[in-house]
């Protein structure tokens, strides 16, 4: 891409591996740039951006309660980020984490209700979470099977299945007296609570062990992608499906397995939300958001499993700051807009990692070098 300016031209070139300082500086600059854009919009709307930002740091990070709130919000985001990541590694675009999370929550809540007080402690919790992961994997398989055998575009089918799952959940709580619904609460439909012995153990305040499960999942995924045959084949298939086919890697089965692992991670996120935070199937808290954000989180983490953790915590801190802003007269909704702007800016900033800009004498001028 060349842009002539007088006798000189601006040349944009791709580059292989940027120096470390660029790798660190690009996202930092992007975040700064995004905050400036956000500040302009907040200021134009007649509110105080500096006050808003200081308060956001306070409410998102500083102190025990803000930090716990941030980590609780980050937990499902880490898992949906990992779900997106594992599929993206193979250039399979699973944008159905949202629906897989919902079906995971439905299955976990259902399993939890069914177990009741029957199986106490760790075993019950493991069964409950496993049900969530299995449901997420099966929901992903609905898109994975047509992709593997008819080459049906998985972007669209996984996306569409989100809304099918959402409507199933709404039906179970809002439109029917289902197994999941608390039959006694008629005017304010809500889910039946699972037994207290199935609540995920808490570490401090609202912080539950789900965070450890999510971080452990990141570690396991990192190991599996790096050191197992499966991980190697995922990488090769992503880089060149044809090469993988010639090497006899069974691409169809790989598509199926990767999408189901991805769905299981998202389903696990749903199970953890039910077991750790909601304690029932609650459509108001499980509506669209975490799955889509997870995709952007995976991209911002440059598809590194351990990178997902800090990025998810960063995004969660912004979300967590929202309600606290109301007290200082800034709309709490500003945080969602700010997240979107930051996402767009950081994604754009990634471009500077892959390209370098150079000014040189224009082609045709005497000093021009041969291309």
């Amino acid at each position, binding site marked *: 891409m060349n842009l002539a300016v007088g006798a000189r031209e601006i040349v944009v070139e791709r580059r292989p591996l940027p120096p470390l300082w660029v790798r660190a500086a690009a996202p930092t600059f992007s975040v700064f740039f995004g905050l400036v854009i956000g500040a302009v919009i907040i200021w134009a709307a007649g509110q105080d951006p500096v006050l808003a930002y200081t308060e956001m740091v306070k409410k998102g990070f500083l102190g025990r309660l803000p930090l716990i709130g941030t980590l609780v919000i980050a937990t499902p985001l880490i898992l949906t980020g990992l779900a997106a990541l594992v599929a993206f590694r193979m250039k399979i675009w699973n944008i159905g984490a949202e629906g897989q999370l919902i079906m995971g929550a439905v299955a976990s809540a259902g399993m939890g209700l069914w177990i009741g007080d029957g199986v106490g402690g760790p075993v019950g919790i493991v069964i409950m979470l496993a049900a969530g992961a299995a449901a997420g994997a099966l929901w992903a398989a609905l898109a994975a099977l047509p992709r593997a055998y008819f080459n049906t575009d998985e972007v669209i089918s996984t996306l569409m299945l989100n809304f099918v799952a959402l409507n199933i959940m709404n039906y179970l709580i809002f439109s*029917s007296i289902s197994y999941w619904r608390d039959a006694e609460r008629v005017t304010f439909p809500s889910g039946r609570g699972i037994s207290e012995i199935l609540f995920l153990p808490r570490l401090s305040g609202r912080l539950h062990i789900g965070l450890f499960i999510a971080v452990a999942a990141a570690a396991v995924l990192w190991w599996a992608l790096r050191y197992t045959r499966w991980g190697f084949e995922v990488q090769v298939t992503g880089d060149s499906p044809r090469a993988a086919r010639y090497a006899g890697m069974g691409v169809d089965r790989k598509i199926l397995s990767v999408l189901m692992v991805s769905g299981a991670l998202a389903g696990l996120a749903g199970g953890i939300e039910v077991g750790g935070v909601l304690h029932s199937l609650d459509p108001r808290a499980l509506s669209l958001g975490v799955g889509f954000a997870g995709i952007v989180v995976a991209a911002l983490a440059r598809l590194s499993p351990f990178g997902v953790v800090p990025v998810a915590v960063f995004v969660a801190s912004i979300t967590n700051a929202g309600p606290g802003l109301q007290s200082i007269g800034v709309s709490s909704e500003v945080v969602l807009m700010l997240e*979107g702007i930051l996402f767009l800016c950081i*994604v754009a900033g990634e471009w500077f990692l892959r390209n370098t800009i150079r000014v040189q004498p224009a082609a045709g001028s005497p000093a021009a070098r041969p291309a």
Partner: protein
Amino acid sequence: MNESVILLSIVSAVGIGTPILLAGLGEMYTEHSGVMNLGIEGMMLGGGVVGFWVSTQHTSLPLALAVGAAVGALFALVHAFLAVTLRVNQIVSGLALVITGTGFAAFIGSLNDSALTYERPLSSFEPVFGEGMRDLPLVGPLVFGHDWVVYLSWVLVAASAFWLFRTRWGLSLRAVGEDPAAADTVGISVTATRYIYTMVGGAGAGLGGTYLIAGIFSNYQHGITAGLGWIAFALVIFAGWRPWRALAAAYIFGVLRNLGFSLQIIGVDIPADFLNALPFVLTIAALILISARSSAARKYSAPSALAVPYSRESR
């Protein structure tokens, strides 16, 4: 009695189908140029909230629609810059746009203790034809009962079908979406084409969003689009990237959205949630059918270069 309920649900389907159609037509242009913009829901909300605000300040509804479309196009410009110039992943960029647009609308709507949610548009969309024509049996409510935006959408469908498949410009557009390298070789600017039609898509979403909020609901609430932007995205696929099919599909999807309520009146109890999920199930089914059968696939499948960034160097 039963017939009138069914008729009523079809007429109201035209209402709710129109914003879906406008947004879907826009996205159809975008996708024909080889750019996939998942951000429709965000652009509908972002454009719609500003368009609605204009309608509460000014009596001119065309002005409100134009402003809504312009804001939608501005949102799309961000996606075009990221997807076409920077060649980032279009899924990531589109989803970031959904979050930005939704957040922007929620922020604007929450200012001054949600003042906007108490506002009403200064004027409303009136039916075009006189009472005499609207009272005609059957064709009255079906054909003559609508406001001008509905007729505008019909004109846009016809114009789009002509533009896309019968003009030089439409051919250039489709060439860019099918084979950008070939289009580039014959002197069509891939970059300009993709920028323009991505913004056309944003304008369609903004137009649909404004009509939905200022026209159909006459009132703004948070998250008022309630997934209609995603239905518009599904519409493009379900319609096989063809305008006339999009018109039919928009009304089918519109009927499904209202059918639960109408059926309840005549004593048939199908949960609205199942009907709400149907457009998405139908789209998946259509998609699987198209991909499983190769002859149909060639005609009604996605543009070959959809969501694939183009760069001359790596040609």
